[in-house]
């Protein structure tokens, strides 16, 4: 059976690539600290020595659209082209090509359907920055095959928060049942408090630092009960109008397991958001 060698959750700030590669007067004052934190975070994946990456992210109305909107979608393709014109335009993100792991995609789709999740699938999925940003930060070689899993955190009606947790728990079980010797890392990206296109956007900090502090505590401690007591689809509007992406963090808490503390936690307060980085080692950590 396959082994899950790391579970990783982080934000997916699209300006990291531009900030970390900028030089001279173009380099923002926070770039060096941000880079140091990312290099330490990256090491937590490198040490786990994975063969395959299962990557959970949210599509930003790129390939998924309101004429036919899935809630949860699994990519099943041999290759994935990545990043879009409007992401090059706005964030300076590079075009990328990533290999797929179709056997694991097939297994996740079959077992996920059998486990009660009516997963959509795509045989030609152009992925966007919620998945390419963690490639850039955690595996810039982009040399490992991936299985992308997209969630709808954008287009109401959304699945309930508990459904994201349940899907994470199911993904964990399904991967561990995959008849393979390969080492799998599950990487997912979400948001803490975030406002986009509203009056609280681009402030000196994230729109709700108090929510961010509680949220980091829930994730770091695997406090799913505390998190589910406070978080509802309605409540997630209060910290910022894009905070529903927090449900992807909840999905990753489901993968990591209730009550399981993260082995690695770090944060970085940027000008309009709190970056957060978490790693769990299900088998006790790399030797």
């Amino acid at each position, binding site marked *: 059976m396959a082994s899950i060698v790391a579970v990783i959750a982080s934000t997916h700030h699209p300006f990291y690539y531009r900030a970390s590669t900028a030089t001279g007067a173009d380099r923002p004052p926070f770039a060096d600290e941000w880079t140091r934190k990312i290099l330490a975070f990256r090491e937590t994946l490198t040490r786990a020595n994975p063969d395959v990456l299962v990557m959970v992210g949210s599509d930003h*109305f790129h390939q998924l659209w309101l004429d036919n909107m899935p809630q949860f979608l699994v990519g099943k393709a041999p290759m994935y082209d990545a990043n879009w*014109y409007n992401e090059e335009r*706005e964030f300076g993100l590079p075009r990328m090509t990533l290999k797929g792991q179709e056997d694991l995609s097939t297994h996740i789709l079959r077992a996920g359907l059998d486990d009660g999740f009516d997963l959509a699938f795509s045989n030609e999925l152009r992925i966007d920055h919620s998945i390419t940003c963690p490639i850039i930060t955690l595996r810039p070689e982009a040399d490992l095959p991936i299985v992308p899993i997209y969630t709808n955190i954008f287009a109401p009606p959304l699945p309930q928060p508990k459904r994201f947790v349940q899907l994470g728990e199911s993904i964990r079980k399904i991967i561990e049942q995959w008849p393979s010797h390969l080492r799998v890392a599950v990487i997912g990206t979400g948001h803490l408090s975030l406002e986009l296109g*509203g*009056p609280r*956007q681009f*402030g000196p900090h994230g729109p709700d630092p108090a929510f961010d502090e509680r949220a980091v505590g829930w994730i770091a401690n695997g406090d799913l009960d505390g998190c589910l007591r406070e978080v509802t689809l309605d409540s997630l509007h*209060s910290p910022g109008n894009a905070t529903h992406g927090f449900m992807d963090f909840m999905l990753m808490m489901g993968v990591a397991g209730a009550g399981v503390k993260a082995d690695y936690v770090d944060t970085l307060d940027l000008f309009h958001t709190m970056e957060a980085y978490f790693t769990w080692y299900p088998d006790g950590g790399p030797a």
Partner: protein
Amino acid sequence: MSKYLLNKFLFTVDRDPELVERYRHEPAELVGWWEANVANALLNSHTGEASTWQAFTDGERAALVGHDHVALFELGAHPFLTLTLFIALFERDNTEPLEYQKAYGAALAHLTLPYPDIAT
């Protein structure tokens, strides 16, 4: 009111460099052309399968022609779609970092929770 059609406009223009430039420089021309040629187009089909019933209200059309992101927010257009397109249109005019993005938020300061419903 058609929040879906507003979002479809923002979505299709944002992903096409030529349309972004046309919308920046000639918004009335672009909105008129788009409503006549794209509003009813099925995005994954040829023209023979187009829809027949979609149109903007006068208020929606005026908000788009006026580059009025505040009105679009109040109409329930998806705020991410509006923001990314409008950054494409106007960030280039910044004289300091995030100048447009901050002004964009400040123009919405009169709005408090709960924000307009964005469900389509």
